[in-house]
């Protein structure tokens, strides 16, 4: 189950401050005329819970047929598709991690969590402060690429890439000018080497299907990093 390409991309969401932390396992099968959803959870590591969400959606498309008389007959057809997402979260932490390739599916998951469990979540945006911490947070990582958006009125974007860029003059001069960081690519080497692209909208994309240990480590890292920043809020 684990070596699934689905685990290559995840979005970080935060529980709405008014919502209580998720403490129990999400376990349910929901079937009504609108949705058919299966939630199943298990604890994969100390305090880390993985919930698999499989749901069926129905889309209506119009199918057209041409008759001999020249009349076009239009009939609606139902197409069913099944989507799968994983959400990971730590007990007593306000952050949840949704594994999905598409942001639209994440929105659907957010809606389902609110409707069936009363869990309100919101999107996270990484601040430059978060990115600053990511730049220097570990010996096991190396920054390969940084994208900036300039601070002046033109809002130019530019990318610096190469090896050892943190010590390069180009990086230093651009970092100083208070330009906003919009994207980072970091090479992590814990159990396996993999690259991670971290976007400003809290999307993280990995270059390889990660090992479970690596992924748990990564999620713990983000959790600690983001918790530090929001201290006092919760």
């Amino acid at each position, binding site marked *: 189950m684990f070596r699934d390409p689905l685990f*290559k991309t995840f979005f970080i969401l935060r529980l709405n401050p008014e919502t209580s932390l998720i403490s129990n396992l999400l376990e349910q099968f929901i079937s009504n005329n609108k949705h058919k959803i299966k939630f199943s959870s298990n604890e994969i590591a100390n305090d880390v819970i993985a919930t698999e969400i499989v749901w069926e959606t129905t889309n209506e498309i119009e199918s057209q047929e041409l008759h001999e008389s020249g009349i076009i007959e239009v009939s609606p057809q139902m197409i069913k598709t099944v989507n799968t997402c994983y959400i990971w979260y730590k007990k007593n932490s306000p952050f949840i991690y949704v594994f999905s390739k598409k942001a639209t599916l994440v929105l659907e998951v957010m809606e389902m969590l609110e409707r069936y469990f009363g869990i309100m979540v919101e999107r996270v945006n990484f601040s430059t402060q978060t990115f600053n911490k990511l730049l220097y947070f570990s010996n096991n990582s190396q920054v390969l690429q940084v994208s900036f958006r300039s601070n002046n009125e033109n809002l130019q974007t530019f990318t610096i890439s190469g090896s050892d860029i943190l010590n390069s003059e180009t990086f230093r001069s651009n970092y100083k000018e208070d330009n906003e960081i919009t994207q980072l690519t970091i090479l992590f080497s814990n159990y396996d080497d993999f690259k991670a692209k971290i976007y400003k909208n809290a999307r993280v994309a990995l270059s390889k299907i990660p090992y479970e240990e690596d992924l748990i480590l990564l999620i713990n890292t983000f959790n600690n990093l983001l918790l530090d920043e929001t201290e006092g809020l919760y």
Partner: protein
Amino acid sequence: MSQFINRLSKSPNLLVGGSLASLISLPVSLVLSYLNENLFMWSLLTINIFILILLFILVKQNSRVLGRLDQVDYYIFNKNIDLEFDENLDKYVSKSDIILVLNSSLTTETIASKPFVEIQLSYPPQLQIDYNWTSEQILREEAKSDSSKFKISLVSGVVIIALRSLCLEKDQEKAFSETSGKIQIAIESELLSESRKEVIPVSIF
């Protein structure tokens, strides 16, 4: 006269011997002509200066004295390609291009022999690449789904080939990850002492 100098400049032995002789005899003749005021020594100095001037003209005539000046350099910009998933297009796209630049400076003699460079690109067939080039010197000899071959006839100057819009269909991801996942560029020419190989790794996010 010009033809004569041209012919002289083509024989490196003469030039090396001449320059060595003039280098040694200049200080010798200078010192000696100061010591004894001999007409022979003075004439030696005159001949010497004449040879120096001749050498100067020869060097100007053909700079090949200083070594082979036929130079072919190539540069590849962007040696790392990241394919990122684009939700709107529903496929993996690269936000950056690969740019191949070939810079050559050749002597007129070499240009007359019509030299060329062959660039062979090979990559996994799932990868889609658009090629852009403007120069008439570039001829695309081969265009397959997993390789391309360019023949570039050289003149002095810069030639550019851009590999743009690199993308991968979403359902091809698994097939692609089973291949080498690399773009290989081989550059071959009689002007390069050996064929060069460059590898550009492609990673999917």
